[in-house]
């Protein structure tokens, strides 16, 4: 008796090692049949089916980092889950947040959220996230503002949304508006990893805001003195700025006194959504 149990245990463990179960789990997601076919096969238990798939998906997702093609499968699984239960708003929302912020796949995130928005027009969360994706991840401020407006018109939407929507329409490229937006999203997301990403993004927007302030002061300085100052600190001492802003990532703002260009030491590239604005795109 004891011996046979031992044999069983060894065999099971050897099989587990040989067939690497964690890899197999993700493969399972890829082989999921399309929701349209799975739904009738579940004979009315499709809500339970959606729950079980959601549980399985969470186990795969628990990994720190997933490969690129794995995100395609995760999207497929989310699509199947939301076809089985089109009103599973939580799955749309969490899937949408994760596909943008973990996977950096705003295209897939948008597809999922559009489906959710279509099926659940009463949920303000979904167009709100769509707005975020367009505004920050895809750099389309106009479309972003449009979705935020849609979210604001949904009954039950929080009070700050209508104000945000109008400001986004009026001044799509304004960093202050972007910061306000990020703060709103931060409040909605208890997930620590997502919050960390949002904070990073907010700091990037702060850099953009600071750069604009500095550029404007430099422009004024140049107009009056016909030359750029030697150091940024001179802007403050000569009364063009109250003080030189601190770089939010702990670096510093670098200044070329020949060309008058300023940039951040940690993030030399400027944010896309505002670059469009500078080029006159928005």
């Amino acid at each position, binding site marked *: 008796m004891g011996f046979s149990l031992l044999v069983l245990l060894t065999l099971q463990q050897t099989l587990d090692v040989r067939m690497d179960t964690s890899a197999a789990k993700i493969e399972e997601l890829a082989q999921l049949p399309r929701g349209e076919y799975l739904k*009738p096969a579940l*004979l*009315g*238990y*499709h*809500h*339970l089916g959606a*729950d079980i798939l*959601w*549980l399985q998906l*969470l*186990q795969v997702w628990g990994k720190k980092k997933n490969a690129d093609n794995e995100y395609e499968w995760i999207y497929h699984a989310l699509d199947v889950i939301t076809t089985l*239960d089109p*009103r599973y708003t*939580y*799955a749309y929302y*969490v899937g949408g947040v994760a596909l943008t912020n973990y996977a950096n796949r705003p295209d897939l995130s948008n597809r999922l959220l559009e489906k959710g928005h279509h099926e659940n027009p009463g949920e303000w969360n979904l167009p709100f996230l769509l707005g975020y994706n367009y505004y920050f991840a895809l750099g389309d401020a106009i479309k972003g503002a449009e979705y935020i407006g849609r979210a604001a018109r949904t009954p039950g939407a929080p009070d700050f949304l209508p104000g945000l929507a109008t400001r986004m329409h009026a001044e799509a490229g304004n960093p202050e508006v972007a910061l306000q937006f990020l703060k709103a999203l931060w409040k909605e997301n208890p997930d620590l990893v997502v919050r960390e990403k949002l904070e990073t993004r907010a700091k990037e927007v702060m850099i953009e805001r600071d750069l604009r302030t500095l550029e404007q002061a430099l422009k004024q300085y140049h107009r009056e003195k016909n030359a750029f100052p030697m150091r940024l600190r001179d802007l403050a001492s000569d009364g063009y700025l109250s003080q030189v802003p601190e770089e939010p990532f702990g670096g510093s703002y670098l200044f070329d006194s020949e060309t008058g260009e300023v940039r951040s030491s940690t993030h030399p590239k400027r944010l896309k959504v505002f670059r469009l604005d500078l080029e006159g795109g928005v």
Partner: protein
Amino acid sequence: MKVLSIAFNTFRENLRDKLLYNLLIFALLMIGSSLVLMRLTLGEFHRLILDIGLGSINFFGVLIAIFVGIGLVSKEIEKKTIYTIVSKPVARYQFLLGKYLGLSLTLVINTAIMAAGLLAVLYFQDVPIHAVLFKALGMIVLEFMVVTAVALLFSTFSSATLSAIFTLAMYVIGHLTTDLKAFGQKMEGVGRSVLEGMYYLLPNLDRFNLKGNVTHQLDVPVGDLLMIAAYGMAYTAFLLMLASVIFQRRDFR
């Protein structure tokens, strides 16, 4: 009166069936397991408890309806106890009706026990309980009634094993009739009329499925509920009459 005494006898007989207890215990274990699964999921914990709970009640109830239902008549014939009843002044339809009511009583009590388990879990997890939950449970019982009638019908003219297979098939088909209709509408001529005829003849068991409404707290208007209930009763009556006609002509050797 005769019908009632057969019904109570059937109920007592059902209580001696070990299969019943197996399925009941399994269903209660499933409902309890949602407490463990709940810790693995993210987000809507209530949803998981409700889905697993109602799913188990539905699934195990159907299994009881099928596997106890198929034995209702065929077991009596096999054990030759049918002779003692047929020789008494009891009409055959009364015998069938009594058998049917007996198993229905068993199912109602079973559902009540499973529902009590679910309600206890919901109560201790502080899940708000809405009226639609009870409506859904009522519809589940109605589905059992139809499935039991199907099982009884098959058990009047075939063996237990075959009846089980037929009834299971009917259960599966009953949940796919909407697709049957959709296929029919894409066809022309004879095919279309055949498929549409089948759609109206076969039970549309999906009508009794309100589990999703409970998950999303969507209330169902009382008028709709009454219509569904009327449909279920009418279908059950139709099946019982058909079973009586077949049973009336049957020769026991």
